[in-house]
C-alpha cells in the first residue's frame, strides 16, 4: 500500500529522526567527555566539543581495566559455551523425548530464569564458601552456567520444535539412536540457534552485576564491578568513567551491530512463545 509521500509520512519520518537523535545523546556525551582532557571537563561546557582530542583517557582506562576485561572474557566465554551446550541437549530431550512429568518440568525450569537472585544469594554464598569456590572465576562460571540453563533450554527447545519429527524417524529407521539422531540431524541444523543462544548468553553474562559484585574477590572481578567501583568514587574526573564505559560496552555493542538479527531473535524468543 505504498503511496507517494504524504504530509503524514513526512511528519512520521521527521518525528522518528528526532527521536533517534535523542536516543543517541548519551553516546555523544560519552564519547565527547571521554575525549576531553580532565581540565576541560566541567558542567557548564559539558555539551561543547573538546578543543583538541585527548586519547589519554582510553590508554589509562585500558591499563586499568584490562585485567577485569580479561576476567569478563573468560567468564562469559566459558559460561556461555557450557550453558549453551547443556541447553542444547536439554532442549533436544524436552522437545523430542518427552518423559513422564516433562510437561511439569518445563515450567519449573523456566521459573528459574525469572526469580530475583536475592532470594537464593545467601545460600549460594554459603555453598560457594563451603566448596571453596567463593571469590574466584570458576565459582562465578558455575553460577552463570546453572542460572543460564533455563533460558538456553527454553530457546533450544523452541528452535528444535521446528525440526520435523519425520526427519528424526527416518534417521531412526537407518539405525540412529539417541546420540546418533542428535549428532546427525540436530547438530547440523543447530548453527543459527546456537548463535542466537550464545549471543544472548554472552551479552547477559558480560553485563551481569549482582553475582559479580557479591561473589568475587577483587582480583577476579568482571568489568562491570570495576567500572561501578571507579564511577562510584567521588573524586574521579568524568573522562575516565566515560572511557571505561566505552570499553565495557564495546564487545556487546559490536555483537549487536554486526549480529543484530540474531540478537533480536533471542530477544523475541525469550518472551514470545516460539
Amino acid at each position: 500500500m505504498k503511496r507517494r509521500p504524504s504530509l503524514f509520512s513526512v511528519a512520521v519520518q521527521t518525528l522518528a529522526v528526532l527521536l533517534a537523535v535523542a536516543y543517541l545523546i548519551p553516546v555523544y556525551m560519552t564519547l565527547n567527555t571521554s575525549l576531553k582532557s580532565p581540565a576541560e571537563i566541567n558542567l557548564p561546557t559539558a555539551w561543547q566539543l573538546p578543543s583538541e582530542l585527548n586519547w589519554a583517557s582510553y590508554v589509562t582506562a585500558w591499563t586499568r581495566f584490562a585485567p577485569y576485561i580479561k576476567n569478563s572474557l573468560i567468564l562469559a566465554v566459558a559460561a556461555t559455551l557450557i550453558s549453551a551446550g547443556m541447553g542444547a541437549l536439554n532442549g533436544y530431550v524436552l522437545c523430542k523425548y518427552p518423559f513422564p512429568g516433562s510437561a511439569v518440568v518445563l515450567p519449573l525450569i523456566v521459573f528459574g530464569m525469572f526469580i530475583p537472585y536475592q532470594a537464593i544469594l545467601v545460600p549460594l554464598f554459603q555453598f560457594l564458601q563451603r566448596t571453596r569456590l567463593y571469590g574466584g572465576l570458576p565459582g562465578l562460571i558455575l553460577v552463570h552456567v546453572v542460572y543460564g540453563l533455563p533460558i538456553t533450554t527454553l530457546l533450544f527447545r523452541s528452535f528444535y520444535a521446528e525440526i520435523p519429527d519425520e526427519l528424526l524417524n527416518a534417521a531412526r529407521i537407518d539405525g540412529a539412536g539417541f546420540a546418533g539422531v542428535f549428532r546427525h540431524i540436530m547438530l547440523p541444523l543447530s548453527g543459527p540457534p546456537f548463535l542466537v543462544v550464545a549471543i544472548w548468553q554472552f551479552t547477559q553474562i558480560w553485563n551481569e552485576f549482582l553475582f559479580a559484585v557479591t561473589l568475587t574477590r577483587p582480583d577476579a572481578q568482571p568489568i562491570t564491578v570495576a567500572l561501578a567501583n571507579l564511577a562510584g568514587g567521588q573524586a574521579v574526573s568524568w573522562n575516565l568513567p566515560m572511557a571505561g564505559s566505552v570499553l565495557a560496552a564495546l564487545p556487546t555493542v559490536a555483537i549487536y551491530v554486526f549480529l543484530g538479527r540474531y540478537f533480536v531473535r533471542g530477544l523475541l524468543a525469550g518472551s514470545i512463545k516460539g
Partner: protein
Amino acid sequence: MRFRLKRDELYAVLVILPSILLLAVFVYGFIAQTFRVSLTDWGQTAALSLQPEINYVGLSNYADLFGGFLNIRFRQDLTNMVMFTVLFVGLSLATGLVLASLVDNLIWGETVLRTVFLYPMSLSFVVTGTVWRWLLQPRGGINLLPTLVGLRAGQFLWLSSRDQQLTFDWALLPHYAVVALLALAAVMAGAAVLRRRRRQAAAWGAAAAMAAAVVATGLSRRWQLLPYSEAHGFSTALWGVVLAAVWQMSGYTMALYLAGLRTVPDELREAAYVDGASRLQIYRHVELPMLMPITVSAIVILGHIALKIFDLIFAMAGPDHAPTSVPAITMFLKTFRGNQLAVGAAIGTILLVIVSLLIVPYVVTQYRGDGGGRA
C-alpha cells in the same frame, strides 16, 4: 525399533537429569534455605564466626521489616519499587508503541532507526547508569539542553532530590486497601447494573456496602500497621532512574510491538481500507487490538525486571542513597555490608513472593502441558 526407543528414552532422562538436579538445588533448594535462614537471627551476633550462634525467631524479621521502628528505609524501598515499576513499565510500553508505530510507517531508513532505538538494550545497566549519572548532573547534562535553544536551564535535581509526592501514611495501609476495595466494588456494581446482570450487581453492591460500613465506622482506620504515622511517597529522585531505564528498555518493547505489527495480515488491512477506513482508523481498530497479547507479555517481562532492579540504581546513585533505594539494594547492604544474613534472606524472600505474583501465572499459562511434539 520399539526396544531401541525405550533405551533412547532412558538416555534422554539421563542427559537432562544433571540439569534438573542442579536447578532443583540451586533454585528450589536455595529458595527453601533462604526462607529457613529468614526465620532465624543469624547475623545479629557474631555472623562470621565459624560456629555462629543461630536462633529460631519465627517471623520476627518480617514483622520488623514491615512494622519495626528501625526499618523505615525498607518501607520506602517498597514504595520506591512499586512507583518505579508502574512508571517504568507504563512509559516503556507507551514509548515502545510510539516507536514501533513510527518505524512501521517510515519511508526510508527503517533499519538504521530500528538499530538506533534498540542499541541501548545491548548495554549493561552499569554502563547505562554510569553514563546517565553524568547526563543527570543537576548543573550540566540534560538540565542544560534548554539553553541550547535559548531557554533557561532546567533546575531539577534528578537523582539527589529529597522531595516526595503522593505521600501516604504507612500505618493506614489497611485503610487505603479497604477504600480501594470500596471503589472497585462500586465501579463493578455500576457496570453490572448497566449490563443488567442482577446477581453480579447484588454481589458487588454487598461488597461495596460492607467496605463502606467498615470505613464509616472508622474500623479500618483502627487497623494500623504502626503505632505511629509514617509518611512515605513517590521519591522524585526516581525520575532520573526511570528516564535511564526507559531509554534502555523501550527499544525492547518497540521490537516486540514491531514483530506484532508485522504479523497483522495485509488482507485485514486491505479489507478495512476497502471498507473506507482511514489510516488512523485501521491503526486504531485493526492493528492495536492485535497487540494486546504482546502487551501482556511485555508487562510481565518489564515488570519483573523493574521489581528486581539493582545494578542500574547501584551505578547511578550508589547503594547508600536512600531516596532511590529499592529492596534489592537494601538486601545487598544488609547481607554483604551489615552481615545481617537473616534480614537479607527475609528481604530476598519478600522480593521473591512479589515477583512470583507476576511471574507464576504467566509461566504456568505459557509453558504448562507443553512438553514438545513427538508424534
